[in-house]
């Protein structure tokens, strides 16, 4: 079919495969699928700038969030506290390699990679420095989305605080505050990134190079 040769003006739902004409959206609007109700296309408000500033804030908070102690325990006049990094070191020290790897990957590595990824994408869009490697990069960035579990880790902190508060003297340190702020920044940096806009710009940039 000749009208479908380039497929510029149609979109398909990723959950049910229904085909629609591409809606013309303003910033802040989103289009929903008629058949299954999932979001088809979304235009986010001021996406690049917002993502840029959130990711800068996230990078600033990165060091305190990982290195400052999250909470401490006092029992029988002994005090011990642990930061996110200590947590992993202790786990390795005592031979629980699998949990150490998991906590490192899901609560530190993936959020950091996604944060720097969002920063890199935002900065190259802001200053118009697009290269073809961005295609692979952004694809990989999306792959990681499932595996960022910092929010689950935060619920884990709350639950373990409840668990400790009965038997021991629990103290909360600055690390918890910076970890919460860091969680907000990483989440916001990836939420505000408008993937439809980024793909379309990359596509335009790329077809120009070809012709």
């Amino acid at each position, binding site marked *: *079919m000749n009208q*479908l*040769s380039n*497929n510029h003006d149609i*979109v*398909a739902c*990723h*959950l*049910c*495969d*229904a*085909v629609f004409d591409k809606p013309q959206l303003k910033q802040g609007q989103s289009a929903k699928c008629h*058949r*299954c*109700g*999932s979001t088809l296309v979304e235009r986010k408000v001021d996406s690049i700038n917002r993502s840029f500033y959130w990711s800068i804030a996230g990078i600033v908070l990165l060091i305190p969030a990982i290195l400052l102690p999250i*909470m*401490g*325990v006092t*029992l*029988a006049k*002994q005090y*011990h506290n*642990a930061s996110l990094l*200590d*947590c992993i070191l202790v*786990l390795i020290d*005592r031979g*629980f390699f*699998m*949990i*150490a790897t*998991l*906590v490192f990957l*899901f*609560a530190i590595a993936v959020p950091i990679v996604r944060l720097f990824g969002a920063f890199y994408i935002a900065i190259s869009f802001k200053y118009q420095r697009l290269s073809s490697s961005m*295609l*692979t990069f*952004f*694809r990989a960035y*999306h792959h990681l989305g*499932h*595996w960022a*579990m910092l929010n*689950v880790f935060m*619920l*884990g*902190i709350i*639950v*373990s605080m*409840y*668990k*400790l508060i*009965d038997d*021991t003297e629990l103290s909360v340190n600055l690390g918890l505050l910076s970890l919460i702020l860091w969680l907000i920044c990483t989440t916001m940096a990836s939420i505000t990134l408008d*993937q439809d806009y980024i*793909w379309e710009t*990359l*596509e335009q940039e*790329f077809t120009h190079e070809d012709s």
Partner: protein
Amino acid sequence: MKTAKELGLGLCPKCHKVNTMHTEPMQCVRCHGWFYQRNRNSLQYTLAWNIAALLAFIPANLYPIMIIYSLGIGDESTILSGIGQFIDQGLYPIAVIIFTASIIVPLIKIIGLFVLVYKVHTGVRLKPTKHSKIYYMLEFLGPWSMLDVFVVALLVAVVELGFVTSVAAGPAINYFTMTVIFTMIAANSFDPRLLWDKKLKQQNRHAESKGI
């Protein structure tokens, strides 16, 4: 309403670009990633990962997940007995959270995916709108079952007061993380579009038989 498959089109799962399918697998013209029109062998993969998750869930509940040492004496607790301790102490909200995250959510995910695979395969009482919502929920719930693993990891790291008290992780934690990761991979390899395909096929067959 037409689906992309009927028009010979395929949607790139990464960048959501509609491509004309010339070959299978197809390289996306926009993001240059390779993809199939439908996830390849989706049902087999989902079923296989799901069975693996179910098998790993058995030792995860039988073995102790956490061992609390106080003054050198170890106290082992499994997932269920840990929840029991919370109830004994009267910490009901936490007991509910842990119970939901580590027993109900994995079980719902495993059973739900089995049901979805069965529905797509046989087409019995298939309601795509309802079932794709269920799938969406299962995918969203995935990572939250990691909660128990993180709690144990934190307790091991924080409560480390030498001889007085220390916490160690039990063997069940490895099986439990395996369960969670396997269900996440199973949910990822399931393709919700198969639900709609099956329904469409049924409707066409129905219309044909009526026409004759």
